[in-house]
């Protein structure tokens, strides 16, 4: 019989996968964005199941609140380009299907064949608070992960500045906006 955890897992998995499928097949961009939010939320659930509570919150905060919202905004901005009636599958979508199926099949075969994958989750030594604390300490410890932390910060800064510059309205778009 399935345990509670397993049921929760399966439901969450179903929701996530269906949401993901809808993201990639939906004709309307807004719908797709909303389905994306649902899929992201499902993944957050999984993080919780995996005792990585902090990461679940980060998932929600970064992905859903920041990225998905951004996507929705841009969808709004570019709505004139592709309408609902236009074709949304590219000409070689069948190749994509084959590729995806092959990939899935391959990965699954690979991982189910490996011995360690039937393992159960080992016990945790620390409590939830201690995990977070340890994560926090590890991120700023000079001997441990401060460098990746700082590099990630710089990367975010670069992305910030870069996206501003890339999306800066140049003279051409000034003219376009004057016309319209």
């Amino acid at each position: 019989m399935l345990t509670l955890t397993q049921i929760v897992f399966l439901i969450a998995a179903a929701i996530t996968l269906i949401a993901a499928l809808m993201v990639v097949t939906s004709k309307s961009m807004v719908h797709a964005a909303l389905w994306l939010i649902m899929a992201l939320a499902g993944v957050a659930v999984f993080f919780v199941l995996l005792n990585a509570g902090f990461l679940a919150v980060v998932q929600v905060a970064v992905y859903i609140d920041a990225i998905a919202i951004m996507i929705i905004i841009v969808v709004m901005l570019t709505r004139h380009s592709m309408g609902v009636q236009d074709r949304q599958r590219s000409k070689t979508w069948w190749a994509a299907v084959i590729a995806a199926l092959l990939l899935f099949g391959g990965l699954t075969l690979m991982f189910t064949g490996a011995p360690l994958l039937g393992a159960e989750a080992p016990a945790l030594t620390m409590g939830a608070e201690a995990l977070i604390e340890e994560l926090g300490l590890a991120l700023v410890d000079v001997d441990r992960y401060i460098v990746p932390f700082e590099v990630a910060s710089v990367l975010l800064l670069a992305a910030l500045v870069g996206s501003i510059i890339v999306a800066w309205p140049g003279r051409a778009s000034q003219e376009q906006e004057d016309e319209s």
Partner: protein
Amino acid sequence: MQIETLIWLIPLPPILAFFTIVLGANRNNRLSHIIAVGSMVVSWGLAMVVFFNAVTNEGFGHHPFHSSIEWITTGDTALRIGVLIDPLSALALFFVAWTCLAIFLYSVGYHNFGKARDPEDRPGLPPRAGGIEPMYARFFAFISLFAFGMLTLVISDNLLLLFIGWEIMGLCSYLLIGFWYGKPSARNAMIKAFMTTRVGDVFMLLGLAYLYSVTGTLSYREILFNEHVLEMLANSPSVIPALSTAGLIGLLLFIGTIGKSAQWPLHVWLPDAMEGPTPVSAMIHAATMVSAGVYLIVRFFPLITAGWHEGGALTPTMLVISFIGAFTALFAATIALAQNDIKRVLAYSTISQLGYMVAAVGIGAFVAAAFHLITHAFFKALLFLGSGSVIHGVEHGVQHTNDHIDAQDMFNMGGLRKKMPITFATFLIGGLALSGFPLITAGFWSKDEILADAFANGHLAVFITLALAAFLTAFYTMRQITLTFLGEARTKAAEHAHESVWTMTLPLIVLSFFAIAAGWVGIPEGFPAIGGLIPNWFHGFISGSLLEHPPAIAFNPVPLLVSIGVALGGLLLGWLVYRRVPAGGEDPVKKPLGPIYSVLRNKYYFDEIYSAVIVRPAYWLAETVVYRWMDRGIIDGFLHGVARMTLRIGDFLRNFIDLPIVNGAGDFVGEGIKKTGKSFRVLQTGRVQEYLIIGMVFAGIVLSYILILRP
């Protein structure tokens, strides 16, 4: 300076003059003739010094001046060249130097130096109206080269150097006969002269080679003055059974003389050689070049007469030589009777006199032959230069009176003794010398010596032939003098003739002196009254050139009387027959001789015979066989065939190998890559998604390979 060094220097000034004129001075006429005449004066001076030393040397014959150097080394042996002045070459040097100097000086006046250049004159044609010769400097360059050749020949001590000088003179003769190359007759004459003498030269070269192969040397001192060598040559049989080696070599060398000295049958070139300017005729064809032929056989007298003893039977070679000499003497004299051109008469006369000398060598009269060689050079040169002066005078008359006649035809002359006194006097002296006028002319002494020798040794056939020739010689000489100078002028041109310039008359005077005096050095001891007053210096001197002195001929009145008789008789008859030829009259002997006259006039048709038998077949051979068949047909045909074949091979290679295979391969590769590229291009659509798909497909393949197929 040593005398030997002087001898080496003798030929040097003329060759330097030749090069200087050719390379630099040929625009300046005065400079050219100063260089040429000056160089001849220097050579003459050196020659006189050497000659003087030679004659004042006691017993010169036993120790002549000589010097030699190695020239071409061939392994252990070497070809040596050198100089030798023994009595014979000393005398030859004497007459060559004097005659050449006289002729050089004469040429200045002959070619009208000092007169303006006539603008109508073209180089290559004789000047028409008394203007200076357009190719003045060229003439002097050529005669300088010629003088070099002759002097080299005379001072040489070996047959090779002699041959070199011989050939240089052959070349100059060719160049100078055809000096006026604009005249077709001159062009034909120059080729004829060269070809005919070449025939003789080929045989001479054979003789030279044969001699060298048998004895290993070409030096006179080692052959001609060496008893053992001469004996060996005389006694060993040659390739022709009837002749000894010496005889065959002598015969081959003699054939060279036949060519060079225009003996029958190779006499045909000399009369035609009169196409050249008169100084050329004088120098080359009277005094020097033709004498070189006689010089050769006189020099090689010991070889030719090897095995013969004084008074014995003649060797086969000597028989041939004496026959040809005597025959030619008579033959040419008969032709001279019927010639009207003043120079032609002298040409045939030269052939005839050379025949005398050749015959003298043939009968073994060494001293007589040498004597006549020297005296003949002087008076024949004198006669030719005199005829040139006459022609100049008559041409002047032609120019003045516009009476266009042949200025060289004696029947257009007459009475010139009044207009050209110096020329007349000197020509008369020369003519008398040629005829052998007794006592006062040199010709008498030398001719008489030949006749005496012939008679004394019992060669009566030769004696009679030569005596007959002497009669005819006197006859035609007087004919010439009478027609030209005596009587009255037959044409207006002759009336307006005038004497020539001093540069032409001075050499005439000098030569006439020699024409008289040269004979007095050889008066035989046994001569009645006069003999013994002056010792026979000549005989003693020149005998030094032989190993054993030939004895002096005992005096015999018969040849003397015959010789005086034919000389005076011929002169008288000539004067009688020709003294009353009127203007426009024909030759008085024409009717009496009848058909013989035209045979003589046409030189026994020898030219026509040679033309049909030798010349035309040779042309046919050259034109048809060698040119058309061999050269154009075979050689060119072969070349064309090779070319065509190469072209075909090239075409084949191009069309069947190069284009399809090589180009095809290249194109195939190129086109193939292009096609491959084109077919691959479709992948690059610019759409990132599709690139990713491809990447994924490949990744999938690799993955499945790793997972499924490998482990």
